[in-house]
């Protein structure tokens, strides 16, 4: 299979707001369940271990008309909760057995309560990850939370989660993360061979496909991409930051590349590489999941940074690892986490003489011209500088 074929498959999954792939997976065998989750992080291993499909719900994108969802939100609130409600109200999520609303911000947190009221037949749960990263304090708390989550999943699915099944799931997700990180590394090295919009569609497909299928798809894609020859262009290398929750429209992702930027790192669909190291397979597995979260996960706006000197360090590290020449801060309009973080991150970046620009988008932004212009000017200015 060539990359084109794989990407076309991903595109079809991405475009399908009825989640046919997930529906068919569920229908294929009795006992299978589907658990939906919002950005930015849930331990998918626990869902998978209950013979359930973790279904990533990233809003409705730019192709869905929102009527009822808008009725629940004021104009100063971002778009992802509106389109997510629209998905729910229009029956597109009627096959989902349980919904998880992880901690991102107050809007998604409150959406968990709306879901409880609107869809009383669906088990809805807010999932709070610790902001204290001491193993004895935040760790102990988180282990208990994971235990509670495990029990809630067992209850919602009717499927027992055994240590063996968790271990098997962790193994698969360790592999998934490893493949994704290696794909990210490959792109950073040869971005012309791994266009970001293709990578993005691959990541989005992973939110609907069973993890083993996704692993195979990633391997196939890497092999195919290596085999193909794509022309190298004189683009500037940038890191994209701020798009960890509401996703930009695909056209925007394409526009940045078309404007002359190679995206060498981004924070789209962060869940599939939130943990930066393997979760150990020995010992207490919930504790392992907890410790890996505490000690080896990405820095993002919805996680507290206990030490002032560490703020923005992760971004700076990624910039140097990926040999980026600049940063584009692209945040959804009205996104508290990204927009409140931006001044601090941009200070760090400029202290290190790294140029940056910033703009806002919504998942249904229709105008690409200003984005193309800004990104293009930025790319040109980087080339002039270096």
């Amino acid at each position, binding site marked *: 299979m060539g990359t084109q074929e794989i990407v076309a498959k991903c595109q079809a999954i991405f475009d399908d707001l009825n989640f046919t792939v997930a529906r068919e997976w569920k229908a294929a065998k009795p006992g299978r369940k589907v658990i939906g989750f919002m950005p930015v992080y849930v331990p998918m291993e626990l869902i998978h271990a209950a013979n359930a499909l973790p279904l990533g719900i990233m809003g409705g994108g730019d192709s869905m008309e929102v009527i009822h969802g808008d009725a629940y939100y004021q104009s100063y609130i971002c778009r992802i909760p509106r389109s997510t409600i629209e998905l729910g109200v229009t029956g597109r999520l009627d096959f989902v057995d349980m919904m998880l609303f992880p901690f991102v911000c107050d809007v998604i947190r409150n959406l968990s309560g709306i879901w409880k009221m609107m869809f009383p037949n669906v088990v809805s*749960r807010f999932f709070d990850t610790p902001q204290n990263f001491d193993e004895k304090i935040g760790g102990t708390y988180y282990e208990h939370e994971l235990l509670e989550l495990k029990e809630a999943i067992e209850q919602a699915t009717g499927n027992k989660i055994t240590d063996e099944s968790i271990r098997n799931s962790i193994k698969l997700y360790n592999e998934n993360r490893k493949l994704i990180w290696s794909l990210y590394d490959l792109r950073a090295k040869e971005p012309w061979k791994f266009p970001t919009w293709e990578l993005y569609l691959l990541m989005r497909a992973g939110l609907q496909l069973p993890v083993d299928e996704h692993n195979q798809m990633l391997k196939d894609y890497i092999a195919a991409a290596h085999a193909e020859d794509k022309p190298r262009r004189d683009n500037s290398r940038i890191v994209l930051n701020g798009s960890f929750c509401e996703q930009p429209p695909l056209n925007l992702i394409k526009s940045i590349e078309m404007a002359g930027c190679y995206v060498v790192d981004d924070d789209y669909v962060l869940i599939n590489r939130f943990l930066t190291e393997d979760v150990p397979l020995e010992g207490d597995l919930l504790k392992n999941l907890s410790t890996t979260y505490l000690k080896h996960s990405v820095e993002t706006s919805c996680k507290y940074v206990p030490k002032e000197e560490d703020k923005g360090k992760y971004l700076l590290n990624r910039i140097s690892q990926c040999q980026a020449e600049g940063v584009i801060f692209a945040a959804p309009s009205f996104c508290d986490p990204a927009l409140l973080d931006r001044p601090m991150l941009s200070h760090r970046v400029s202290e290190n003489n790294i140029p940056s620009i910033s703009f806002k988008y919504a998942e249904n932004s229709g105008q690409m011209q200003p984005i193309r212009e800004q990104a293009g000017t930025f790319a040109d200015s980087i080339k002039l500088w270096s």
Partner: protein
Amino acid sequence: MSAEKEAVKDESMLLQKAMISRNYDAITSKHETGRKVVSTFVPGNLNELVMCFDMLNNLPEINAIQAGMRKLSGGYIMEAEKGGHSEDVCTYVKADIGQMARGNIAPNGKPFPDPDILLLSYTGCYTFMKWFELLREQYKCPTVMVHVPYQGDGHTTQNMRDYIVKQLKEEVIPTFERISGKKFDIDLLRELMTRSAKAEDDLVWVIETAKHKPSPIDAYFGAVYYVGPIFSAFRGTQEAVDYYKVLKKEIQYRIDNKMGPITPEGEMKEQKYRIVVEGPPNWTNYREFWKMFYDEGAVVVASSYSKVGGTYDMGFRHDPKNPLESLADYCLGCYTNRNLPTRVDILEKYINDYEADGLLTNSIKSCNSFSAGQLMMMREVEKRTGKPGAFIETDLVDPRYFSAANVKNRLESYFQMIEQKRRGVKSAA
């Protein structure tokens, strides 16, 4: 403010004013007195603990409110936006940061000294976390966080409580000891909490007097003052206990004489509408906003905003027998840390218990913790109580976001609708 008529003030208001200015004076003179200053937030405010170390409590939200009422916040916000802060985010944060950029002058005219420590009581509001990361960047001072888990399922768990207590024991208290040089004395904490509970009893009595007809208080615009001491730097002090004694006497007098609340223009006479309000008030046009209510004969009989610093009317009291656990429970129970179904239950109960005509939501642009989901909440409360709701939009301290004509238009429509419905029911009967 100077152009406005001097407002009518009760003794309790004057008393509170003096308390607040004493606290500001104590903060701005920290270099002379050697006392340490803690900055922290209203929800999850651990005042008794701060007092145990003889430190002073400075609350940036209150400072932003002060700036809003003094018509200074607009300039501060623009200053912060010039410095790269987005127009989309919380204006408390921007007012605070803009104030710093313009010399950080306290309401007493003296510059605020830098805080010695930031106590990030992360309770019911995401923005708090970023706010103190931003302040930490400027002050470069020690920062300690208390992460209070959200009541996603509408109840607290032992795990949540243990997590908070552990943070207090192993992080907050040792840090406070280090900063203040004072040893933690749990008996002192118990003593202060005994006073807290006493004042809290009185506060609940005050809030619940709105069940009277006519109501002797306004439970939104007036309650902002009544909750002041307990929500800010005075919980656990004798001053707070004394304040509530005076306040109770004033309100008892009004009950005995069938009097309404005291507005800035004197006693409110006619009470045509009894309203429950959800959401914080606007501070930049506070008096104008209040006037739109009392001019129409609308009195607020219950509000959720008067529960942001603790839901005492639902039974919680600081408990000297279990001081740290009780602080944990206090933080967990703050209004915005409760999930939406619980908030709906609370509002429904208010409509029924206070025999209100309906629910008015003042949706605040800055505050997603409050605002995201309010339209759903309103619909649910309407459904359950059969009483009509209305929705207005303002902001905390951004004067650009207060459109008087717009707000007045909706309020009048709402009150007239209640009136018309009432008449409709009567003529049908």
